[in-house]
């Protein structure tokens, strides 16, 4: 099982992300439909698949309820964060008042 808090980078763009909640099934996070690599891993330049080139925004979280998986984008890119060929969905966080 992948570690919560593990960091990944895209092979198709500049995106970086933290795996906040790992998926329940085997596999690694993807960006633009291509497997991401661990932050200290080697990147082989690749191209985002059509339909998965919708991008990701820094500071936003992306989730799949079905997989119980969630990622935090820490560096923006042109590929969509996803898993097993499907894009994760942007979490529309309800803005909470600051309480600390």
């Amino acid at each position, binding site marked *: 099982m992948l570690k*919560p*808090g593990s*960091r990944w980078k895209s092979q198709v763009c500049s995106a970086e992300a*933290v795996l*906040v909640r790992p998926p329940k099934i085997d596999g690694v996070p993807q960006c633009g439909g291509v497997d991401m690599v661990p932050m200290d891993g080697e990147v082989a330049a690749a191209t985002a698949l059509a339909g998965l080139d919708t991008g990701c925004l*820094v*500071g936003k*979280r992306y989730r799949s309820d079905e997989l119980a998986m969630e990622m*935090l984008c*820490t*560096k923006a890119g042109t590929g969509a964060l996803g898993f097993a060929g499907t894009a994760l969905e942007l979490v529309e*966080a*309800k*803005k*909470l*008042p*600051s*309480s*600390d």
Partner: protein
Amino acid sequence: MRVSLLLDLVAETLPDRIAIDGPGGSLSFGDLHARARGFAASLEGSTARNVGFLGVNSPALPAVLFGAALADRPFAPLNYRLPDDGLRKLAARLAPAVIVADDDMAARIAGIDGIEVRSTATLAGLAAPEDWYPASEDEDTAVLLFTSGTSGEPKAALLRHENLTSYVVQTVEFLGADEEDATLVSVPPYHIAAVLALLTSVYSGRRVVQLEAFTPEGWVDAAARFAVSHAMLVPTMLARVLDRIEEVGTALPALRALAYGGGRMPLSVIHRALALMPDTGFTNAYGLTETSSTISVLGPDDHALARSGDAAGLARLATVGKPVPGVEVEVRDGNRVCGPNEPGEVFVRGEQVAGRYAERAATDDDGWFATKDRGWFDADGYLTVDGRLDDVIVRGGENISPGEIEDVLRTHPQVADVAVIGAPDEQWGERVVAFAVPRDPAFSDGPALSDWVRARLRSTKAPAQVHFRESLPYNDTGKLLRRLLRDELAD
């Protein structure tokens, strides 16, 4: 996800933004990260199991908090207000440990078996080699926090990395703060709100302004001088800040968000606050040490409704609003879940709820934590927290809430502060006794105060006795020490 990652991410993205500010100096996110790493690297090879902290708010605090996480050891801030023997007992419970202490406090914990004391002043000079990184990430506990122990020996709540980061990630936006935003932290380092303020501020990229210790003068001065946009206060602090603002007429135009919590807020205080600070958004936050702070909030919109005189808004001022995302709250009477407006004990479940004390489990098998607070939901899902269950007065089989009687007494023109407790009574089991601080020291008309309550609630809730005092006993984070008042009656 680990606490140290919050700082790693922000320091990489915005290394030059100011992270920590205040009379004690300023640090950028990059500098803070470097110090945390330096401190963590200095623990390599140490046999310490825990990292303690004994000091006031200063740039050393976040360096040790994040450094302990990087060094894979729990961070344990200690209450410097404790008398020496109480403090030494808590310190000894951390052994083997490194405790980082302010120079004027270090002697208080000298010579304890298994405790190595280091000075906060040494942190600034520490640095880790560039290729240093944590050797292990095995320790689940990020923060070990002793509860205030108002009702017995302090318990050590173990807040796991997952408890804290799940709260931060779900309730705060990464890098969501503007560069000019600043949070003023005036609660001491051993209060859960101080720990969470550091974590949420760092994650949102918001500057933290630190006050070494709270005084109303220092708070108002720092809020103005550092153009503070956000702050959190406990009820006793807010009342004193309002006095100060009235006295000197300071305007705080930058202050957008003021949160309060950590105890029951007298309605009279919040009404004053709404009137005195018309452009500030208020948030009432309810939480406990064991729940990684906030589990329910009443936000600025509801406060604005109340400010406009709206009846529903005014009624909600007495509530702590609704549970935050990721948290379930139930009110129970025994094993039964209560319906709307039915009082019972407040139970909480969620990722941010700590599962353990050092001594025992904190939650039941299904993950529910019993808060020991009495409360109820209204039909719209707003939660009222009435006070500690232990403080409920049982008079002739009737459950009487001290808070309700206190609220009524506070509306009397002669009452500046008040506490209501139950005293043993042969006929009724318990009777209602009030301790009042009069505005005019010459005022001592107890029967008039009892009549005041009788006319507004009912006769069973009217105090059988009223004792007059110059002040009431609070601990330094604003919790009323009812135990001391009970002891006083027993003597």
